[in-house]
């Protein structure tokens, strides 16, 4: 793919958090509401630096908690201001009440979620339990594989969230440490090109003392289903916007990471792995090695978990014999969350056997050899027709339990 040279600001080896903060800074959100939490802190620290040095004119507000930080975004968005925050783990849980409110009140704002395990025990390493727990709120969630995708997705997601057909809070989910703290070669884009691409946020309502409005009014059972349905429909419409914006981004910048999904050697593949986040990169390495041995394996990377691209998943998996879903989160007693939804999407489809692994919890490393082991085990289960109903905890150390 040829990158559009004219829109490049610089190409450097830099840390993920700094690359994201520089990109968000270039969009100059009117309000940045923050509360620090590892491993997200570098992002908001760097934004604070940009504001303090006079590089950007954002109103930077240090809150007394993540609940307040999110509430600041609610108010700013209601006032028609482009707003931004970042958080991780317990901080995201504390934002949850506000995020449901923002989705229901149709107030767009962008969050960077730097994925981290939930307590207890305290663990600051990556898994997806924090963001996956927000899945029912009406929030848009895009998961990214590497620093460049994190940068590009932050630009895309403002336009998606602020689209008048959508108007929902949106979250870029990026793996803690592996993306936030790692250094990779990354292209940063020209401020003007970024701003041209995202445009300006025009809210349908504005806070104006001359024309007061009611936010968060009471509704009885005669209208509440319809309000909830409208959130569901708006999130559904976001799927098409994500596809459209990814395509427009490719045209404008020459950079592309997939739309709601990304496929990697799925054409004619007998075994397809489904996963989200940085593990997709590791899986691609494993697939390259297996393809060299003529094994027909592919990857279906889920970029958009909300909206959930069920029909695309059905389409891609239709010819496969075995589908392996690797989940970095689970719903206790029910299985991996992505795994459960993929199974639901393929219900009564006569599709592949689906094997769901819960792996990479709390930063437990997954190397290409682990991926190959998961594939081999899954193909055995599939061939024998002995696919378990329940998700399997990969590399569980039974001696400790």
């Amino acid at each position, binding site marked *: 793919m040829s990158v559009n040279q004219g829109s490049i600001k610089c190409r450097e080896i830099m840390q993920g958090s700094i690359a994201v903060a520089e990109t968000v800074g270039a969009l100059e959100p009117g309000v940045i509401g923050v509360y620090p939490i590892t491993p997200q802190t570098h992002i908001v620290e760097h934004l604070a630096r940009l504001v303090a040095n006079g590089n950007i004119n954002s109103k930077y507000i240090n809150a007394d908690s993540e609940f307040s930080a999110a509430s600041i975004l609610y108010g700013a968005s209601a006032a028609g201001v482009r707003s931004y925050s970042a958080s991780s783990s317990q901080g995201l849980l504390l934002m949850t009440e506000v995020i449901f409110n923002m989705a229901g*009140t*149709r107030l767009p704002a962008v969050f960077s979620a730097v994925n981290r395990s939930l307590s207890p025990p305290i663990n600051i390493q990556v898994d997806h339990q924090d963001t996956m727990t927000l899945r029912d709120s009406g929030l848009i969630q895009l998961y990214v594989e590497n620093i460049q995708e994190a940068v590009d997705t932050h630009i895309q997601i403002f336009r998606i969230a602020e689209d008048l057909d959508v108007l929902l809070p949106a979250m870029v989910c990026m793996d803690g440490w592996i993306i936030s703290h790692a250094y990779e070669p990354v292209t940063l884009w020209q401020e003007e090109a970024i701003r041209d691409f995202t445009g300006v946020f025009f809210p349908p309502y504005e806070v104006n003392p001359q024309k*007061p*409005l*009611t936010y968060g009014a009471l*509704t009885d059972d005669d209208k509440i289903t319809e309000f909830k349905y409208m959130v569901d429909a708006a999130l559904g419409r976001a799927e098409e916007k994500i596809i459209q914006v990814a395509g427009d981004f490719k045209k404008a910048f020459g950079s592309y990471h997939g739309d709601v999904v990304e496929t990697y050697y799925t054409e004619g593949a007998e075994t397809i792995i489904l996963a989200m986040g940085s593990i997709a990169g590791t899986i691609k390495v494993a697939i390259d090695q297996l393809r060299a041995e003529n094994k027909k394996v592919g990857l279906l990377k889920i970029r958009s978990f909300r909206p959930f691209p069920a029909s695309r998943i059905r389409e891609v998996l239709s010819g496969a014999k075995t589908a392996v879903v690797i989940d970095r989160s689970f719903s206790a007693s029910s299985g991996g969350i992505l795994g459960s939804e993929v199974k639901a999407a393929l219900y009564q489809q006569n599709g592949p056997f689906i094997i769901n692994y819960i792996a990479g919890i709390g930063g437990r490393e997954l190397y290409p050899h682990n991926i190959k082991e998961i594939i081999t085990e899954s193909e055995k289960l599939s061939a024998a027709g002995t696919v378990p109903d329940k998700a399997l905890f990969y590399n569980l150390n039974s001696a400790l339990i």
Partner: protein
Amino acid sequence: MKLNLGGITEAGRSLKNHTGTWRYKIPVINKEKCTGCGVCELFCPDSSIVITGGLASIDETYCKGCGICVRECKLEAIKMQPEGEESR
């Protein structure tokens, strides 16, 4: 009628929400006992009591019938009666 996006509406919505329809009992003022002291007006959570001409009067459009006024009236000048009962 179409619903507003996100439930955002014009201000003063509580004026349009006639909470009096929730009520199944209504406070009735005994004009002999009421001195217009204003304790019930102060305690009414829905601002549905005002003192006019030295007497408490109930705003039936918004009174939910919670009965707090009855509990707070030290002169026992307010009673709850079933909605629509003739005797009131």
